[in-house]
Structure formats: structure tokens, C-alpha cells
């Protein structure tokens, strides 16, 4: 899943959060509660009347959570027994909620469904919803990270097409850097975001955890190669050793040519269109992630819909998920939010086909890989990035950094190893 990494919006949500919860009037019959985050929570309300008309007696109460507080809120609600019936959930959070035995297994319902079919979904995205062989979520919208780049600057530096391999990418960045000189850079890889490095790491064959998810595998040659490439970008001065917040208004900076490559996600499609000045609109483009030796894998992100186990209204909840998964609703939802549809056939909507910037996402989504499915993963990825940031600023070697990440991962996984040894790692 992706928490939009803008601190400004986190601040905004702190202010707006308490005011933003909205609800629907409840009629007789079934009242479904549905929690959705951020912009999705705002917009999905508009889609509910059609569902309610098709399902007489069912009313949906949408409650909006700010992304920055959603994870903590869900865990608190689990502890307090106040989870909703249906919920949007970042798909990397799923293993955690499976470990809590909070979410309902959906295999049988999908098997019987004429709407939700694995064959309509992107393989890598679907697999994020399968934990220990059970299906626990249905993809709602999808997300991955890829290259946003300045076509004009790249062309001036002598590159007509975006890079498809690491080697090409590196030489393109060096050419851009030579051209823009001291005051600017070639790429922006914010040091407080783990997604760029994680994407490079997922492009390798080596898994990131070993021993059934009981230990880190960051000293593998594959991960070290990804880490070395990441380190090289900074060591050669091709990217500023800066975090997201240091950049200020990154759209202005991108327009001004402060950096030419930016690894980011689909929400920026809309932001770039809205915020870049009109003359620059023809100058930017998206491209799939370059890989070690050809087009590389991407991070399988996005959000899924889940039914909580304690819900007494699972049938109605499932009908809501089916409704949100239909091709028409997926297309409408994309039009309302810009969130990329999880159904492949919703991508054939004319508006989406004609969106030249979305095409790279369509291609990348065929090559996405899930992150390791341990509940501790988010924390391990955070530690990975902290060590990587230290590597960049304190000049640790790649070997030192990889060893340190492994050490931290193994410490975080101690309880999981104990659980695995007891045979309780996988809930029934």
C-alpha cells in the first residue's frame, strides 16, 4: 500500500481528520459500515446510492480515515472490537491482519462469484492478497512506483527514449547531471521513502526474507547489487541526499529542472497534470522501471477490500465488494479519484486508453511483485531505509549496511521465529 508521502498532507489531515468523518442516514434493515481512507473515503460516498438502490434494505455508512492515522486506528478498533464490516486496507498490511485473525477468508466467495475473478486481476497484485495459501482481500485499486521523467531534458542530454536497464539509467543520469551542472541533480530518490530502494531490491531474484520469513536475507548478492546501485546514484552526486520534506514544492522543482527522474506512484499523475505549469505539460512522461538487465519488476501496491471476521453482515459486505469490483464502477472510480483500476478490463475505457501517462503503469503492473508477507515487513522496510539513509550520509559500505539491515531484521523477527517454531505462524 502507499501512504502518500507528503508531510504537508499529513499535517492537513491532522487538522481536517476529526471534521472529515461523514456518515449516511440509516434506514431500516441492514446497515453496513465501510471504512475508507483519505481521498477514496471522500469519493466512494458518491458511488453508494447505486449500490443501495440495487440492494433494497441495505444502507452503507462510509467513514473516512486519514491515511496517516489509519493503521493505528484499525489496530485500536481491533483491540476494542469496533471494526467495521468492510474496510479498505493497504495490501501490505494484510499479513498483519491475517496474523490477528481479524479478516475473513474469501476463497469460497470468489469461487462462487461471477464478478470477482483472479483472471481479471494483475497477477502480482492478486498475490498480495493471498497469505499462507488463503485469500483474504480483493484488490480495489492498484499502485506501483515507476519513473516520472523530463522528456525534454533527457532529449537534450542525448537520450531519445527512457532507460530500460540500470546501466542505461545510470548513463542517462550522468549525462543529465553533466548538463545541469552543480546547482541541480539528475534524480530524486527521497531518503525517507523506502519504495525506490525496495523496488530495486524486488527486481532481484533473491527473496528478501529467508527461513519461512523468520530471518532477513539482505546479505544476498541480489540485495547487495540493488543497494550498491542505490548507493552509487548518491555517491556520484546524481541525486540529492534529501528527504521528501526538504524539497519544498517538488512540482516547482521538477518544472525548474532541479531533477529529471523521480520514482513515484500513480497519485502523481493527477498532481503533475494539475500542478506543473502549462508550458511544461508536454515535457514530462512516465516509463516503466529499468531493471538490472532489461525492464524490471515493480512494487505490488494498492489497496484491497476486506471483510472482518466479526462482522455479522458478511453477505451484504461481500455484495458491496462485488459491486465495487464491477468494470463500470472501477472505471467510474478511476474517473473520480485517478486511482488505477485493479480489473484489467476497466483499463480499456477510452479515457484511460488515451491517457499517455498511464500507459507505463499498465505495462509495469504486469511485472509487479508482492513484498514478503510477514506482519513485521513494514517495520523491516522502514529499518532498511533508515540504514540505507545512513549509508548515504555516513558513507557506510554496502556490506556494512547489508549486514546491519540483516541484524535489525533478525531482531524484529525474533517473535515470528518463536511463533513459527510453535507451529502457530499460520492461523487456521
Amino acid at each position, binding site marked *: 500500500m502507499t501512504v502518500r508521502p507528503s508531510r504537508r498532507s499529513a499535517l492537513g489531515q*491532522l*487538522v481536517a481528520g476529526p471534521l472529515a468523518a461523514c456518515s449516511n442516514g440509516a434506514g431500516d434493515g441492514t446497515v453496513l459500515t465501510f471504512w475508507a481512507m483519505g481521498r477514496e473515503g471522500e469519493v466512494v460516498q458518491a458511488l453508494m446510492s447505486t449500490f443501495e438502490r440495487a440492494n433494497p434494505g441495505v444502507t452503507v455508512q462510509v467513514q473516512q480515515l486519514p491515511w496517516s492515522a489509519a493503521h493505528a486506528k484499525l489496530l485500536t478498533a481491533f483491540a476494542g472490537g469496533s471494526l467495521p464490516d468492510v474496510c479498505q486496507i493497504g495490501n501490505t498490511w494484510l499479513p498483519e491482519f491475517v496474523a*490477528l485473525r481479524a479478516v475473513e477468508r474469501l476463497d469460497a466467495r470468489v469461487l462462487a462469484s461471477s464478478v470477482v475473478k483472479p483472471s481479471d486481476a494483475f497477477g502480482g497484485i492478486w498475490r498480495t492478497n493471498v497469505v499462507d495459501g488463503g485469500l483474504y482481500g480483493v484488490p480495489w485499486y492498484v499502485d506501483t512506483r515507476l519513473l516520472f521523467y523530463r522528456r525534454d531534458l533527457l532529449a537534450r542530454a542525448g537520450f531519445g527514449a527512457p532507460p530500460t536497464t540500470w546501466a542505461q539509467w545510470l548513463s542517462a543520469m550522468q549525462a543529465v547531471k553533466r548538463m545541469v551542472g552543480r546547482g541541480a541533480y539528475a534524480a530524486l530518490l527521497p531518503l525517507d521513502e523506502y519504495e525506490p530502494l525496495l523496488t530495486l531490491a524486488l527486481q532481484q531474484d533473491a527473496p528478501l526474507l529467508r527461513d519461512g520469513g523468520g530471518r532477513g536475507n539482505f546479505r544476498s548478492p541480489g540485495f547487495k547489487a540493488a543497494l550498491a546501485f542505490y548507493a552509487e546514484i548518491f555517491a556520484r552526486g546524481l541525486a540529492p541526499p534529501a528527504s521528501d*520534506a*526538504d524539497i*519544498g514544492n517538488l512540482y516547482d522543482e521538477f518544472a525548474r529542472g532541479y531533477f529529471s527522474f523521480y520514482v513515484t506512484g500513480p497519485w502523481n499523475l493527477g498532481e503533475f497534470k494539475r500542478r506543473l505549469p502549462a508550458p511544461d505539460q508536454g515535457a514530462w512522461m512516465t516509463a516503466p522501471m529499468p531493471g538490472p538487465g532489461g525492464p524490471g519488476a515493480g512494487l505490488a501496491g494498492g489497496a484491497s477490500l476486506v471483510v472482518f471476521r466479526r462482522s455479522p453482515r458478511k453477505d451484504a459486505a461481500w455484495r458491496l465488494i462485488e459491486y465495487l469490483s464491477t468494470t463500470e464502477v472501477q472505471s467510474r472510480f478511476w474517473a473520480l479519484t485517478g486511482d488505477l483500476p485493479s480489473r484489467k478490463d476497466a483499463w480499456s475505457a477510452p479515457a484511460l486508453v488515451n491517457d499517455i501517462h498511464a500507459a507505463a503503469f499498465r505495462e509495469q503492473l504486469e511485472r509487479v511483485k508482492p513484498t514478503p508477507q510477514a*506482519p513485521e515487513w513494514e517495520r523491516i522496510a522502514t529499518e532498511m531505509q533508515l540504514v540505507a539513509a545512513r549509508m548515504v550520509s555516513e558513507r557506510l559500505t554496502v556490506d556494512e549496511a547489508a549486514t546491519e539491515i540483516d541484524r535489525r531484521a533478525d531482531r524484529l523477527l525474533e517473535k515470528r521465529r518463536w511463533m513459527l517454531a510453535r507451529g*502457530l505462524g499460520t492461523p487456521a
Partner: protein
Amino acid sequence: MKRDRAGWIFVAPAMTIIGLFFFLPVAAAFVLSLTDFDIYALADLGNLRFVGLRNYGELLANPLFWQAVANTLYFVVVGVPLSIAASLGAALLLESRLARFKGFFRTALFAPVVTTLVAVAVIWRYLLHTRYGLINYGLGEIGVRPVDWLGDPHWAMPAIILFAVWKNFGYNMIIFVAGLQTIPEDLYEAARIDGASALRRFWHVTLPGLAPVVLLVSLLTIAGYLQLFAEPYVMTQGGPAQSTVSILYFMYEQGFKWWSLGMASAVAFLLFAMMLAVTVIQLAIARRRGML
């Protein structure tokens, strides 16, 4: 005996409430700090392990915890004297016989205390912006190169201190103003007749007169500053490079971000022990110097 019982009956409601809502949770938190309560335990209490003092051991071996302690001490050691000096300075100016519009200035200087932290944090983030912020603009005018306030690990804590002192000094200022008003005017007059300069009058009349107030203010400020949380939470989220992770911020991340409630409780008790130690030392020094 009868009077004893009447006394107990009178305090019973208060004692019950304090026991129920203070001592019981504290005891429960202490027990929690001896376990490895995490999301697995949240799923099933059977996954809870009693680990004795292991949380404390791991904390003391965790470099990030020590960094949080160091960051917090840095904040206290620099921030508290700065805050007290600012409060005292502002109070002296307000009480000066030359000051005009005292009511207006008192309100204006106190205003930051009652503003909403999140709202003023937004404004301070603008002020502190590396390239477009007013502070760097002002520094540029006197030839200082732009400082990356919130992005440079060396400058983030000073920026937080600046923000916190600005936000909080008004409160202590009001206490100092009240303290200054209790010093009899004839002491100053006598000193002036003896030929004491303004500095000497401050040193020999004002400060001794304010001693108990200074002690109180420093106790409260240190205790408050040791609990640094909201400023880094809204300004930097602990970054860059964890240079603004305070002890409480560390506890918050352990407890509510990662749901390691056992570890978070252990952090809380270590912070409690630290605050108790600092306060006891301060009181001992004050007692020896005859300030109490």
C-alpha cells in the same frame, strides 16, 4: 478513632478515583513492560510471553533509544535555560518602568502559549523553509548562507528548540511577572541609594527575590521538556536521520505504530525514572543552597 474514620470516609472517593484511574493503570503498565505484548499477543493472549526485564535490557542496548535520550537531553539542556532566560527577559521588560502598553505586550507575548500547535507548526515550517523561508532570507541579508533547518540533522533540533521556546516561554513569563511583583520596591531603592548599578541590582535583589520562583519554573520546565513529543511529531516526524526522535516519540512509535506495547511501557518507566532522578537532584541542590 471515630474522627479517623470520618477522615477516611471523606478522602475515600478521591482515593478510589486516584487508585482506579492512576495507580491501577500504572501498575498494569508496569506488568505490561515485563511482557513482550505485540500484535501476536493482541491476536491471542496465548502468544504473550513474560520476559522479565528483557525489554529494559533491549532498550538499553538499542542505539536508537540512546539517540532518543541524547536528543531529549540536548533539547532540555539547551532549551530549558533558553526558555527561562527568554521568559525572565520578557518579564523584566514588561515590569520595567519604561515599558508602555504593558497589557498589550503581555497578551502578545503570551499568545503563542494558547495557539494550536499544529496550526503554528505549519507557519513555522514556512518560516524555516530552506530556500523560501523568512528566517533564511533574514540570515541571507547579513551574509549567512541558507541553513537547511528541518532537513539537516545538525539543524533540525535547534529549529525544534527555537519553535518550542517561542511556543512556551510566555507561560513562565507570566509566573515571573507575578514573582517580580512580590519583590518590595524599597529594596531596589535602598540598593540604588547605595550606588548599585542596574546589573548589580538584578544580581543582588531581583535574582535572590525570585529564587523560589526560578526553582519552581525550572522544575516544571525540565519535567515538561523531557516529555518532548508534539513538536517533532508535527514538524519533522523524528527526522532527518532520527535527529529529532525524543524519548516520548520513540515510545509512541513503539506503542502505536508498531504495537509493541511491552516495549513502549518499558520506555515510559525509564522516562519516569529519569524524571524522578532529575527532580530529586534538583531539589537536593536547592536544599543545600538554602533555596527551600
